[in-house]
Protein backbone atom coordinates (compact mmCIF):
# COMPACT_ATOMS: atom_id res chain seq x y z
CA UNK A 1 0.00 0.00 0.00
CA UNK A 2 2.99 2.26 0.61
CA UNK A 3 6.03 2.27 -1.58
CA UNK A 4 9.03 4.59 -1.49
CA UNK A 5 11.51 4.39 -4.35
CA UNK A 6 15.01 5.79 -4.51
CA UNK A 7 14.31 8.58 -2.02
CA UNK A 8 17.19 11.01 -1.69
CA UNK A 9 17.43 13.94 0.66
CA UNK A 10 20.21 16.19 1.83
CA UNK A 11 20.44 19.00 4.33
CA UNK A 12 22.90 21.44 2.85
CA UNK A 13 25.92 19.43 1.83
CA UNK A 14 25.16 16.41 4.02
CA UNK A 15 23.37 13.63 2.20
CA UNK A 16 20.95 12.12 4.71
CA UNK A 17 18.97 9.69 2.55
CA UNK A 18 20.94 8.05 -0.23
CA UNK A 19 18.22 6.34 -2.22
CA UNK A 20 15.88 4.60 0.18
CA UNK A 21 13.56 1.87 -1.08
CA UNK A 22 10.81 0.66 1.18
CA UNK A 23 7.53 -1.03 0.56
CA UNK A 24 4.90 -1.69 3.16
CA UNK A 25 1.86 -3.93 2.84
CA UNK A 26 -1.50 -3.29 4.47
CA UNK A 27 -1.45 -4.60 8.03
CA UNK A 28 2.35 -4.70 8.24
CA UNK A 29 3.99 -3.70 11.47
CA UNK A 30 7.44 -2.57 10.39
CA UNK A 31 10.05 -1.59 12.92
CA UNK A 32 12.87 0.59 11.66
CA UNK A 33 16.10 0.28 13.58
CA UNK A 34 19.55 1.71 13.05
CA UNK A 35 22.21 3.94 14.56
CA UNK A 36 21.39 7.53 15.50
CA UNK A 37 21.69 10.04 12.69
CA UNK A 38 21.14 7.54 9.87
CA UNK A 39 17.95 9.24 8.74
CA UNK A 40 15.19 7.16 10.36
CA UNK A 41 13.21 10.19 11.47
CA UNK A 42 13.83 11.88 8.15
CA UNK A 43 12.53 8.83 6.30
CA UNK A 44 9.27 8.83 8.27
CA UNK A 45 8.92 12.55 7.62
CA UNK A 46 9.33 11.98 3.89
CA UNK A 47 6.16 9.92 3.95
CA UNK A 48 4.02 12.85 5.12
CA UNK A 49 6.29 15.42 3.47
CA UNK A 50 7.43 17.12 6.66
CA UNK A 51 10.84 16.50 5.12
CA UNK A 52 11.20 17.36 1.45
CA UNK A 53 13.32 14.90 -0.53
CA UNK A 54 15.16 16.13 -3.58
CA UNK A 55 14.22 13.08 -5.64
CA UNK A 56 12.46 9.74 -5.54
CA UNK A 57 8.83 8.69 -5.64
CA UNK A 58 6.12 7.71 -3.22
CA UNK A 59 3.07 5.64 -3.93
CA UNK A 60 0.34 5.46 -1.35
CA UNK A 61 -2.41 3.23 -2.68
CA UNK A 62 -3.55 5.13 -5.76
CA UNK A 63 -1.82 8.38 -4.76
CA UNK A 64 1.46 8.74 -6.62
CA UNK A 65 3.96 11.53 -6.31
CA UNK A 66 7.37 12.28 -7.71
CA UNK A 67 9.23 14.28 -5.07
CA UNK A 68 10.75 16.47 -7.78
CA UNK A 69 7.25 17.57 -8.69
CA UNK A 70 5.59 17.50 -5.29
CA UNK A 71 2.04 18.74 -5.50
CA UNK A 72 -0.14 20.05 -2.72
CA UNK A 73 -3.11 17.82 -3.42
CA UNK A 74 -1.11 14.62 -3.23
CA UNK A 75 0.70 15.78 -0.10
CA UNK A 76 -2.58 16.67 1.55
CA UNK A 77 -4.18 13.38 0.49
CA UNK A 78 -1.30 11.45 2.07
CA UNK A 79 -1.40 13.56 5.23
CA UNK A 80 -5.10 12.87 5.63
CA UNK A 81 -4.45 9.14 5.58
CA UNK A 82 -1.41 9.01 7.84
CA UNK A 83 -0.78 10.13 11.39
CA UNK A 84 2.48 10.59 13.20
CA UNK A 85 3.52 10.09 16.80
CA UNK A 86 6.59 12.16 17.59
CA UNK A 87 9.63 11.58 19.71
CA UNK A 88 9.03 14.93 21.42
CA UNK A 89 5.25 14.29 21.64
CA UNK A 90 4.38 17.60 19.97
CA UNK A 91 1.07 17.76 21.73
CA UNK A 92 -0.56 21.16 21.11
CA UNK A 93 0.45 23.15 24.16
CA UNK A 94 -2.45 25.58 24.02
CA UNK A 95 -5.09 22.86 24.23
CA UNK A 96 -6.32 20.39 26.81
CA UNK A 97 -5.88 16.67 26.25
CA UNK A 98 -9.42 16.37 24.94
CA UNK A 99 -9.06 19.41 22.67
CA UNK A 100 -5.84 17.98 21.26
CA UNK A 101 -7.63 14.86 20.14
CA UNK A 102 -10.77 16.66 18.96
CA UNK A 103 -9.20 19.55 17.10
CA UNK A 104 -8.03 17.71 13.96
CA UNK A 105 -11.43 16.08 13.69
CA UNK A 106 -13.25 19.40 13.85
CA UNK A 107 -10.78 21.55 11.92
CA UNK A 108 -9.48 19.16 9.27
CA UNK A 109 -12.19 16.54 8.98
CA UNK A 110 -15.02 19.01 9.61
CA UNK A 111 -16.86 16.74 11.99
CA UNK A 112 -19.40 18.22 14.38
CA UNK A 113 -18.15 18.97 17.89
CA UNK A 114 -20.40 16.28 19.33
CA UNK A 115 -19.15 13.60 16.98
CA UNK A 116 -15.53 14.68 17.45
CA UNK A 117 -15.92 14.59 21.20
CA UNK A 118 -17.45 11.14 21.11
CA UNK A 119 -14.55 9.80 19.04
CA UNK A 120 -11.97 11.62 21.15
CA UNK A 121 -13.36 10.29 24.41
CA UNK A 122 -13.30 6.77 23.03
CA UNK A 123 -9.62 7.10 22.06
CA UNK A 124 -8.74 8.66 25.42
CA UNK A 125 -10.40 5.72 27.13
CA UNK A 126 -8.31 3.39 25.00
CA UNK A 127 -5.03 5.03 26.05
CA UNK A 128 -6.18 5.36 29.66
CA UNK A 129 -6.35 9.17 29.79
CA UNK A 130 -10.02 9.77 30.52
CA UNK A 131 -9.26 11.25 33.97
CA UNK A 132 -6.83 13.72 32.38
CA UNK A 133 -9.11 14.91 29.58
CA UNK A 134 -9.24 18.51 30.84
CA UNK A 135 -5.57 18.86 31.77
CA UNK A 136 -3.17 21.05 29.83
CA UNK A 137 0.09 19.55 28.52
CA UNK A 138 2.10 21.46 31.13
CA UNK A 139 0.32 19.44 33.80
CA UNK A 140 1.14 16.02 32.35
CA UNK A 141 3.98 13.52 32.59
CA UNK A 142 5.90 12.46 29.49
CA UNK A 143 4.02 9.19 29.38
CA UNK A 144 0.68 10.97 29.50
CA UNK A 145 1.80 13.41 26.82
CA UNK A 146 2.81 10.59 24.52
CA UNK A 147 -0.45 8.76 25.12
CA UNK A 148 -2.24 11.99 24.20
CA UNK A 149 -0.18 12.06 21.01
CA UNK A 150 -1.17 8.49 20.26
CA UNK A 151 -4.87 9.17 20.95
CA UNK A 152 -4.72 12.18 18.63
CA UNK A 153 -3.15 10.06 15.91
CA UNK A 154 -5.67 7.23 16.31
CA UNK A 155 -8.68 9.54 16.36
CA UNK A 156 -8.17 10.61 12.75
CA UNK A 157 -8.49 6.95 11.70
CA UNK A 158 -5.29 6.85 9.65
CA UNK A 159 -4.49 4.03 7.25
CA UNK A 160 -0.89 4.15 8.39
CA UNK A 161 0.47 5.29 11.72
CA UNK A 162 4.06 6.49 11.98
CA UNK A 163 5.79 6.22 15.35
CA UNK A 164 9.09 8.06 15.63
CA UNK A 165 10.95 6.79 18.70
CA UNK A 166 7.83 7.21 20.83
CA UNK A 167 9.54 6.24 24.08
CA UNK A 168 13.02 7.72 23.63
CA UNK A 169 12.21 10.96 25.47
CA UNK A 170 10.58 9.25 28.40
CA UNK A 171 11.88 8.58 31.88
CA UNK A 172 12.54 4.84 32.12
CA UNK A 173 9.66 4.21 34.51
CA UNK A 174 7.19 5.71 32.01
CA UNK A 175 8.28 3.65 28.99
CA UNK A 176 6.17 0.66 29.94
CA UNK A 177 2.80 2.44 29.90
CA UNK A 178 3.45 3.80 26.41
CA UNK A 179 4.76 0.52 24.98
CA UNK A 180 1.63 -1.18 26.29
CA UNK A 181 -0.55 1.26 24.35
CA UNK A 182 1.56 0.90 21.19
CA UNK A 183 1.33 -2.85 21.41
CA UNK A 184 -2.44 -2.58 21.71
CA UNK A 185 -2.51 -0.29 18.65
CA UNK A 186 -0.27 -2.38 16.42
CA UNK A 187 -2.06 -5.61 17.29
CA UNK A 188 -5.36 -4.05 16.22
CA UNK A 189 -4.26 -4.52 12.61
CA UNK A 190 -3.47 -0.93 11.64
CA UNK A 191 -0.46 -0.60 9.34
CA UNK A 192 2.37 0.76 11.46
CA UNK A 193 5.90 2.01 10.99
CA UNK A 194 7.84 2.23 14.20
CA UNK A 195 11.28 3.74 14.61
CA UNK A 196 12.62 2.42 17.87
CA UNK A 197 15.61 1.46 19.95
CA UNK A 198 13.53 -0.97 22.01
CA UNK A 199 14.91 -4.09 20.33
CA UNK A 200 13.01 -6.68 22.33
CA UNK A 201 9.75 -4.79 21.84
CA UNK A 202 10.37 -4.46 18.08
CA UNK A 203 11.05 -8.17 17.84
CA UNK A 204 7.82 -8.99 19.67
CA UNK A 205 5.35 -6.75 17.86
CA UNK A 206 6.71 -6.52 14.30
CA UNK A 207 6.31 -8.80 11.36
CA UNK A 208 9.17 -6.99 9.64
CA UNK A 209 12.34 -5.25 10.68
CA UNK A 210 14.14 -2.70 8.54
CA UNK A 211 17.72 -1.85 9.40
CA UNK A 212 18.75 1.59 8.20
CA UNK A 213 22.38 2.49 8.02
CA UNK A 214 24.08 5.56 6.53
CA UNK A 215 21.01 6.74 4.65
CA UNK A 216 19.93 3.49 3.04
CA UNK A 217 17.96 0.39 3.95
CA UNK A 218 20.80 -2.00 4.74
CA UNK A 219 18.72 -5.02 5.77
CA UNK A 220 15.07 -5.88 5.59
CA UNK A 221 13.41 -9.06 6.83
CA UNK A 222 11.45 -10.92 9.46
CA UNK A 223 12.45 -10.42 13.10
CA UNK A 224 14.02 -13.89 13.00
CA UNK A 225 16.11 -13.00 9.92
CA UNK A 226 17.36 -9.79 11.39
CA UNK A 227 17.91 -10.71 15.03
CA UNK A 228 18.95 -14.33 14.79
CA UNK A 229 20.90 -14.29 11.55
CA UNK A 230 22.19 -10.77 10.92
CA UNK A 231 23.21 -10.49 7.29
CA UNK A 232 26.06 -8.02 7.69
CA UNK A 233 28.81 -7.28 10.17
CA UNK A 234 27.48 -3.74 10.72
CA UNK A 235 24.03 -5.04 11.59
CA UNK A 236 25.50 -7.63 13.94
CA UNK A 237 27.62 -4.96 15.57
CA UNK A 238 24.65 -2.60 15.91
CA UNK A 239 22.46 -5.28 17.48
CA UNK A 240 25.21 -6.22 19.86
CA UNK A 241 25.70 -2.66 21.05
CA UNK A 242 21.94 -2.09 21.42
CA UNK A 243 21.42 -5.30 23.36
CA UNK A 244 24.44 -4.61 25.53
CA UNK A 245 22.97 -1.17 26.27
CA UNK A 246 19.68 -2.69 27.34
Amino acid at each position, binding site marked *: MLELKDVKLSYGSTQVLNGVNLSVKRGDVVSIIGPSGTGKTTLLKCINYLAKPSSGTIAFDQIRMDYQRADKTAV*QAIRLRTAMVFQQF*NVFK*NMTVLQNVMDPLVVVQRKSTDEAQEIALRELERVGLTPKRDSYPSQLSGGQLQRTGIARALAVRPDVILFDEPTSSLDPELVGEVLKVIKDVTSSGITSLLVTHEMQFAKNISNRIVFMDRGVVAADGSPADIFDAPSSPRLAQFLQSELAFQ
Partner: protein
Amino acid sequence: MDVSAMIPELLSALPLTLAITFTALISGFCLALIATTLRVRRVPLISHLVDLYVSYARSVPVVLQLFVAFYGLPLLVILFGAKDFISATMAAMVGLSLYHGGYLSEVMRPAYLAVDRGQHDAADSLGYTFRQKISRVVGPQAVHFALPGYGNSIIYLIHNVALVMYIGAADVMATAHLIMERDYNQFQFETYLVLAVIYSLMCLVAWLIVRFFELRSPMQAPEATTTTPIKNELLASV
Protein backbone atom coordinates in the same frame (compact mmCIF):
# COMPACT_ATOMS: atom_id res chain seq x y z
CA MET B 1 -5.81 81.34 40.25
CA ASP B 2 -5.41 78.18 42.26
CA VAL B 3 -3.66 74.92 41.46
CA SER B 4 -6.69 72.73 40.88
CA ALA B 5 -7.96 74.95 38.05
CA MET B 6 -5.34 73.61 35.66
CA ILE B 7 -6.51 70.00 36.10
CA PRO B 8 -9.65 70.26 33.95
CA GLU B 9 -7.64 72.30 31.46
CA LEU B 10 -5.05 69.53 31.25
CA LEU B 11 -7.73 66.88 30.99
CA SER B 12 -9.31 68.73 28.09
CA ALA B 13 -6.28 67.67 26.06
CA LEU B 14 -6.71 64.04 27.09
CA PRO B 15 -9.13 63.04 24.28
CA LEU B 16 -6.64 64.14 21.63
CA THR B 17 -3.81 62.39 23.46
CA LEU B 18 -5.86 59.22 23.63
CA ALA B 19 -6.88 59.55 19.98
CA ILE B 20 -3.24 59.69 18.95
CA THR B 21 -2.40 56.77 21.24
CA PHE B 22 -5.22 54.54 20.02
CA THR B 23 -4.62 55.32 16.37
CA ALA B 24 -0.97 54.37 16.79
CA LEU B 25 -1.93 51.28 18.79
CA ILE B 26 -4.34 49.99 16.20
CA SER B 27 -2.58 50.87 12.98
CA GLY B 28 0.77 49.98 14.54
CA PHE B 29 -0.63 46.57 15.39
CA CYS B 30 -1.81 46.02 11.81
CA LEU B 31 1.54 47.21 10.44
CA ALA B 32 3.36 44.88 12.82
CA LEU B 33 1.24 41.92 11.73
CA ILE B 34 1.95 42.60 8.08
CA ALA B 35 5.64 43.28 8.69
CA THR B 36 6.02 40.12 10.78
CA THR B 37 4.28 37.97 8.20
CA LEU B 38 6.53 39.28 5.45
CA ARG B 39 9.61 38.81 7.59
CA VAL B 40 8.97 35.24 8.69
CA ARG B 41 7.93 34.11 5.22
CA ARG B 42 11.12 35.59 3.72
CA VAL B 43 9.73 37.03 0.52
CA PRO B 44 12.80 38.11 -1.49
CA LEU B 45 13.47 41.86 -1.64
CA ILE B 46 10.23 42.75 0.16
CA SER B 47 11.45 41.07 3.35
CA HIS B 48 14.65 43.12 3.16
CA LEU B 49 12.72 46.35 2.75
CA VAL B 50 10.60 45.43 5.74
CA ASP B 51 13.74 44.64 7.76
CA LEU B 52 14.99 48.10 6.86
CA TYR B 53 11.73 49.68 8.05
CA VAL B 54 11.86 47.78 11.33
CA SER B 55 15.41 48.83 12.02
CA TYR B 56 14.46 52.45 11.23
CA ALA B 57 11.54 52.28 13.67
CA ARG B 58 13.68 50.74 16.37
CA SER B 59 16.90 52.68 16.05
CA VAL B 60 15.98 56.26 15.13
CA PRO B 61 14.98 58.36 18.17
CA VAL B 62 11.22 58.76 18.25
CA VAL B 63 11.48 62.57 18.27
CA LEU B 64 13.36 62.34 14.99
CA GLN B 65 10.79 59.93 13.57
CA LEU B 66 8.11 62.49 14.41
CA PHE B 67 10.01 65.24 12.60
CA VAL B 68 10.50 62.97 9.62
CA ALA B 69 6.74 62.35 9.52
CA PHE B 70 5.94 66.01 10.06
CA TYR B 71 8.18 67.28 7.24
CA GLY B 72 8.09 64.18 5.05
CA LEU B 73 4.35 63.54 4.82
CA PRO B 74 3.47 66.89 3.16
CA LEU B 75 6.18 66.23 0.56
CA LEU B 76 4.72 62.81 -0.09
CA VAL B 77 1.20 64.20 -0.37
CA ILE B 78 2.33 66.88 -2.81
CA LEU B 79 4.27 64.29 -4.78
CA PHE B 80 0.99 62.47 -5.32
CA GLY B 81 -0.51 65.70 -6.61
CA ALA B 82 -2.77 66.49 -3.66
CA LYS B 83 -2.86 69.67 -1.63
CA ASP B 84 -1.00 69.55 1.66
CA PHE B 85 -3.61 68.77 4.30
CA ILE B 86 -1.33 67.19 6.89
CA SER B 87 -1.85 68.59 10.39
CA ALA B 88 0.51 68.13 13.30
CA THR B 89 -1.94 65.66 14.82
CA MET B 90 -2.04 63.58 11.66
CA ALA B 91 1.74 63.61 11.40
CA ALA B 92 1.91 62.51 15.03
CA MET B 93 -0.48 59.65 14.35
CA VAL B 94 1.41 58.46 11.28
CA GLY B 95 4.83 58.89 12.88
CA LEU B 96 3.87 56.99 16.01
CA SER B 97 2.05 54.26 14.08
CA LEU B 98 5.18 53.63 12.08
CA TYR B 99 7.30 53.64 15.20
CA HIS B 100 4.97 51.34 17.14
CA GLY B 101 4.48 48.98 14.20
CA GLY B 102 8.20 48.49 13.70
CA TYR B 103 8.85 48.09 17.38
CA LEU B 104 5.99 45.63 17.81
CA SER B 105 7.11 43.55 14.86
CA GLU B 106 10.28 42.85 16.78
CA VAL B 107 8.08 41.57 19.61
CA MET B 108 5.91 39.44 17.34
CA ARG B 109 8.65 37.85 15.27
CA PRO B 110 10.59 36.32 18.17
CA ALA B 111 7.26 35.20 19.69
CA TYR B 112 6.39 33.40 16.45
CA LEU B 113 9.83 31.84 16.28
CA ALA B 114 9.60 30.80 19.93
CA VAL B 115 6.82 28.37 19.05
CA ASP B 116 8.40 24.94 18.93
CA ARG B 117 9.08 23.56 15.44
CA GLY B 118 7.36 20.35 16.56
CA GLN B 119 4.03 22.18 16.90
CA HIS B 120 4.24 23.07 13.20
CA ASP B 121 5.17 19.49 12.35
CA ALA B 122 2.26 18.05 14.30
CA ALA B 123 -0.29 20.39 12.70
CA ASP B 124 1.17 19.85 9.21
CA SER B 125 1.20 16.08 9.64
CA LEU B 126 -2.49 16.13 10.52
CA GLY B 127 -3.37 18.07 7.39
CA TYR B 128 -3.95 21.54 8.85
CA THR B 129 -3.72 24.26 6.22
CA PHE B 130 -1.31 27.13 6.93
CA ARG B 131 -4.19 29.33 8.08
CA GLN B 132 -5.67 26.63 10.31
CA LYS B 133 -2.27 25.97 11.80
CA ILE B 134 -1.74 29.64 12.59
CA SER B 135 -5.20 30.28 13.97
CA ARG B 136 -5.53 27.10 16.03
CA VAL B 137 -2.02 26.24 17.17
CA VAL B 138 0.87 28.57 16.38
CA GLY B 139 -0.97 31.89 16.76
CA PRO B 140 -2.35 31.30 20.25
CA GLN B 141 1.05 30.07 21.45
CA ALA B 142 2.85 33.01 19.87
CA VAL B 143 0.39 35.40 21.56
CA HIS B 144 1.34 33.83 24.86
CA PHE B 145 5.02 34.51 24.21
CA ALA B 146 4.34 38.00 22.88
CA LEU B 147 2.15 39.35 25.67
CA PRO B 148 4.82 40.58 28.11
CA GLY B 149 6.73 42.32 25.30
CA TYR B 150 3.49 43.70 23.93
CA GLY B 151 2.67 45.21 27.32
CA ASN B 152 6.06 46.94 27.33
CA SER B 153 5.66 48.24 23.81
CA ILE B 154 2.32 49.84 24.72
CA ILE B 155 3.93 51.54 27.70
CA TYR B 156 6.77 52.86 25.49
CA LEU B 157 4.19 54.13 23.04
CA ILE B 158 2.33 56.00 25.78
CA HIS B 159 5.60 57.58 26.91
CA ASN B 160 6.51 58.56 23.38
CA VAL B 161 3.18 60.23 22.77
CA ALA B 162 4.53 62.92 25.10
CA LEU B 163 6.97 63.85 22.33
CA VAL B 164 4.32 64.98 19.86
CA MET B 165 4.44 68.49 21.33
CA TYR B 166 7.74 68.94 19.49
CA ILE B 167 5.89 68.94 16.20
CA GLY B 168 3.11 71.07 17.62
CA ALA B 169 0.36 68.58 18.37
CA ALA B 170 -1.73 69.68 21.36
CA ASP B 171 -1.55 66.68 23.68
CA VAL B 172 -1.55 66.86 27.51
CA MET B 173 2.18 67.60 27.58
CA ALA B 174 1.92 70.51 25.16
CA THR B 175 -1.11 71.82 27.02
CA ALA B 176 0.78 71.64 30.30
CA HIS B 177 3.50 73.82 28.84
CA LEU B 178 0.95 76.31 27.57
CA ILE B 179 -0.65 76.52 31.00
CA MET B 180 2.68 76.96 32.71
CA GLU B 181 3.80 79.74 30.41
CA ARG B 182 0.52 81.55 30.71
CA ASP B 183 0.58 81.33 34.50
CA TYR B 184 4.15 82.57 34.79
CA ASN B 185 5.39 79.13 35.80
CA GLN B 186 3.99 79.42 39.31
CA PHE B 187 2.73 75.84 39.48
CA GLN B 188 5.39 74.08 37.45
CA PHE B 189 6.02 71.29 39.93
CA GLU B 190 2.31 70.70 40.54
CA THR B 191 1.57 70.59 36.84
CA TYR B 192 4.29 68.05 36.19
CA LEU B 193 3.02 66.03 39.11
CA VAL B 194 -0.49 65.93 37.65
CA LEU B 195 1.02 64.90 34.31
CA ALA B 196 2.93 62.12 36.01
CA VAL B 197 -0.29 60.84 37.54
CA ILE B 198 -2.09 60.95 34.17
CA TYR B 199 0.70 58.96 32.47
CA SER B 200 0.88 56.49 35.33
CA LEU B 201 -2.84 55.86 35.13
CA MET B 202 -2.73 55.33 31.35
CA CYS B 203 0.11 52.84 31.73
CA LEU B 204 -1.62 51.11 34.61
CA VAL B 205 -4.77 50.59 32.58
CA ALA B 206 -2.73 49.24 29.65
CA TRP B 207 -0.82 46.93 31.95
CA LEU B 208 -4.00 45.63 33.59
CA ILE B 209 -5.53 44.82 30.22
CA VAL B 210 -2.44 42.94 29.05
CA ARG B 211 -2.17 41.17 32.39
CA PHE B 212 -5.80 40.06 32.09
CA PHE B 213 -5.00 38.34 28.79
CA GLU B 214 -1.81 36.85 30.19
CA LEU B 215 -3.72 35.23 33.03
CA ARG B 216 -6.35 33.89 30.68
CA SER B 217 -3.75 32.13 28.54
CA PRO B 218 -4.08 28.35 28.80
CA MET B 219 -0.31 28.14 28.61
CA GLN B 220 -0.11 30.09 31.85
CA ALA B 221 -0.32 26.90 33.91
CA PRO B 222 3.40 25.94 33.72
CA GLU B 223 4.59 29.36 34.84
CA ALA B 224 2.02 29.42 37.61
CA THR B 225 3.45 26.26 39.08
CA THR B 226 7.13 26.76 38.33
CA THR B 227 7.36 30.30 39.69
CA THR B 228 6.19 29.29 43.14
CA PRO B 229 9.57 27.98 44.30
CA ILE B 230 11.30 31.07 42.90
CA LYS B 231 8.92 33.30 44.86
CA ASN B 232 9.75 31.37 48.01
CA GLU B 233 13.43 31.72 47.26
CA LEU B 234 13.00 35.47 46.92
CA LEU B 235 11.17 35.61 50.20
CA ALA B 236 13.83 33.50 51.81
CA SER B 237 16.54 35.84 50.57
CA VAL B 238 14.93 38.91 52.09
